[in-house]
């Protein structure tokens, strides 16, 4: 609890688990409250299993009023609350607080209404991302943000993380596709942010709420903007014999005035890993492949694919392959979307990073990561949302080998700090959570971090909602500085930092 006290946000006298469970049972049906360790342990981590912590209790409310009751009770008892959707997050954002309550929203899984003409859907936070697109498909619509975990991840989690996906270059992130959110603050106050109208009066609180990693309020309902399905989508798979050439091809596509529906890159390490698993027909001789998608009317796609092919030829592509059917298009994408499970097949453990960099530094950063593989004696496969500069290096390691976890974490930290150095950010879409909290000290000044805390206090004055995540304390940054800067010298000086 020290961590919070340092910021002046007193967190005193956490009540006993028994008392908290009794207070919750007074407000919720018994089947909604889990407190035995064998019941709460399954909730000890999210998709980032490196970080674990068993909560005092797990509550699974079924109504908005019950969510309100949980928050009011916890506020009164000064108990931290962590909200959780499907638990697919990759930064430990839904890791429980050991002295707190985990609030699971899995039972909020109804699609409340669909207005096909207005292209709007109102859903509960526990609805899976893909379930929305499936439900509206009959109207020729879909929900555009498509994180790779879309078969499992939920809309509430997407709102918390501002999730992206492979199509966000053209169709935007979660924040661009959410019109309105109904949420409950830690005070138990029900608030609607955003509007069905094009905008709302006052400062735009919805924008700051989306991507706030469950620290400002608990979502109970989301109004989504749906997108008309294009008549056709086709994807080009382009091979390159050099990573740099592939990176340049990305810039050339943008320079040609084309905004592809998706533009992804995989390096050789990644295609070699994925191909035996998915059999997508990837060119495993290429140093890098690009997947570049065009969508629209039949004529439009034909025209754009032609222009894309011309650009890739000029950029020195060694092989071009255009999907000939919807099945083939999905197969090309399946390889990309299954990069993580494929990593799980070739390596006992893997660690996925999520930095974003200016596109023009793609080649440099890739080369630097290659050198780091030698420095840390670990393999790293690279998949990217190349179109928007979002990198997902997958560090492959074995937690059974002593020291490998620590080295994998250091490798990851070095990659993120490199991203900041070239003018990028430590997280493009996975969030800071627990995982990247130290790197926040690298990316932001103390004043800026304090301002984030100020935003949090405006929504949650006692800082009880998902506390100790995302925004590092002064002490943590000082500690991290000590760890990484030895007498003013950077650790791993052999890594070129340009």
């Amino acid at each position, binding site marked *: 609890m020290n961590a919070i006290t340092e910021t002046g946000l007193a967190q005193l006298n956490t009540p006993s688990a028994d008392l908290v469970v009794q207070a919750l049972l007074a407000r919720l049906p018994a089947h909604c409250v889990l407190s035995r360790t064998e019941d709460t342990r399954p909730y000890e981590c999210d998709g980032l299993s490196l970080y674990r912590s068993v909560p005092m209790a797990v509550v699974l409310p079924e109504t908005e009023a019950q969510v309100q009751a949980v928050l009011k009770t916890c506020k009164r008892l000064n108990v931290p609350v962590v909200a959780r959707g499907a638990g697919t997050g990759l930064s430990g954002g839904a890791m429980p607080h050991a002295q707190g309550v985990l609030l699971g929203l899995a039972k909020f899984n109804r699609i409340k209404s669909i207005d*096909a*003409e*207005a*292209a709007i859907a109102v859903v509960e936070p526990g609805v899976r991302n893909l379930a929305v697109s499936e439900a509206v498909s009959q109207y020729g619509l879909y929900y555009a943000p498509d994180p790779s975990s879309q078969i499992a991840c939920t809309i509430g989690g997407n709102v918390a*993380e*501002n999730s992206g996906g492979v199509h*966000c270059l053209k169709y935007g992130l979660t*924040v661009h596709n959410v019109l309105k959110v109904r949420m409950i603050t830690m005070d138990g*106050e*029900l*608030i609607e*942010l955003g*509007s069905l*109208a*094009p*905008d709302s*009066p*006052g*400062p*735009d*609180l919805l*924008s*700051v709420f*989306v*991507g706030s990693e469950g620290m400002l309020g608990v979502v109970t309902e989301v109004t989504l903007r749906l997108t*008309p*399905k*294009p008549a056709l989508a086709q994807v080009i798979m382009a091979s390159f014999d050099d990573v740099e050439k592939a990176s340049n091809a990305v810039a*050339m596509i*943008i320079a040609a*005035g084309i905004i592809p529906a998706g533009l992804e890159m995989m390096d050789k390490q990644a295609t070699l890993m994925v191909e035996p698993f998915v059999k997508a027909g990837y060119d495993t001789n290429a140093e890098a492949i690009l997947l570049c998608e065009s969508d*629209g*009317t039949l004529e*439009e796609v034909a*025209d*754009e694919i032609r222009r894309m092919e011309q650009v890739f030829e000029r950029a020195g592509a060694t092989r071009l392959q255009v999907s000939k059917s919807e099945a083939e298009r999905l197969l090309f994408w399946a390889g990309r979307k299954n990069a993580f499970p494929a990593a799980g097949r070739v390596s006992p453990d893997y660690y996925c990073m999520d930095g*974003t*960099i*200016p*596109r*023009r530094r793609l080649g440099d950063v890739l080369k630097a990561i290659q050198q780091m593989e030698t420095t840390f004696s670990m393999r790293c496969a690279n998949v990217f949302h190349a179109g928007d*500069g*979002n990198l997902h290096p997958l560090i492959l390691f074995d937690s059974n080998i002593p020291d490998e976890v620590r080295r994998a974490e250091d490798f990851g930290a070095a990659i993120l700090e490199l991203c900041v150095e070239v*003018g990028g950010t430590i*997280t*493009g879409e*996975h969030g*800071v959570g627990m995982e990247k909290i130290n790197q*926040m000290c690298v*990316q*932001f*000044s103390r004043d800026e*971090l304090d*301002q*984030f805390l*100020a*935003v949090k*206090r*405006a*929504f949650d004055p006692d800082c009880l909602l998902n506390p100790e995540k995302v925004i590092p304390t002064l002490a943590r940054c000082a500690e991290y500085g000590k760890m990484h800067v030895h007498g003013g010298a950077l650790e791993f000086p052999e890594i070129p930092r340009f």
Partner: protein
Amino acid sequence: MKYEIAQLSEQVLEARANYRPVLIHGGHTKSFYGNQYLRSSDEPISLDMRSLRGIVNYEPTELVLTALAGTPLQEITDTLEASGQMLAFDPPAFGAQATLGGCIASGLSGPGRLGAGPLKDYVLGTHLLDAQGRVLKFGGEVMKNVAGYDVSRLLAGSMGMFGALLQISVKVAPKPLQTLTLEWECTEAASLAMCHGMRAHPLPVSASAWELVGHRGRLRIRLAGAPAAIESARRKIGGEVVNEPESSQYWQDLREQRLSFFMAPHLWRVAVAPGTPALNLGPTLIEWGGGQRWIAADLEPGMVRNAAQQAHGHATLFRMGAGKQAPEQGVFHPLTPAVTTIVKRLKQEFDPKGVFNPGRLVAGI
């Protein structure tokens, strides 16, 4: 630039120490917008951002432009134009003196918002001069960034209530390969039905406008995109072609509110949910597929706000005639009590003494 920023910072600190409000401005082109500060006895300090001028970074292949707040909007649009790019949210300038800072702080999007989305969707990063005279940096120059809260988007459209924007990074877009404007003679109701009917279809509609021209009224729709897409859309929706240069001139005049409709002294802006029928409040011009309704009439605020609220939206007294008194609750739609609480706390955290643009966006805050 360090010197100019230090000077601005000093002005803020001085104002704060002497309990004087700070009114931020650029080229004064949007000074009519928002609640006016009338207590001249407080000796407000005007913070002129035009000393900060220039494009800091522009790399067309990155689709990002970074410029200082006082940079003329015209300079930015000219620079983008030379590389075949644009600000897709199509911001109104309301005069040659308009600056990027004022454009972002006011949060106003133009006709192109229908196809491209609102201004806030294009703000990637900001530098803010806060009430303690510090420079805080939020966001950055990359497309995807979820490190910390997205304060930059909060600042877009905040009318300077949290501090003065010093520098802004905006996402830019390639200009469409082609545009085509089509028009129909039709009533307000028919045009609303037609625009609403297009929402759920993949048509390259980038702007729409209905106004009472001629007997029944006239709907104009601008298509933008690849020639093939425009051709197939045109076959689907029909309409008469409006030739160049008339069509370009029309969309520009609409954005800059130079059409004769906008000559009326009073102008309400009502934002409504999709599918909202005609409001029947007075002379009307409709944009954004029905989402934005301009009403050129001196209306009783309570009545307009009621109508807006019933349409799940809100109403703003955008402009008013000389000598008219502003509504008691301000020109913007009042916030709900729960939202007000959070906005008050945010203001308290960013600007505890309330020096920046008091009441301009939210009356009393």
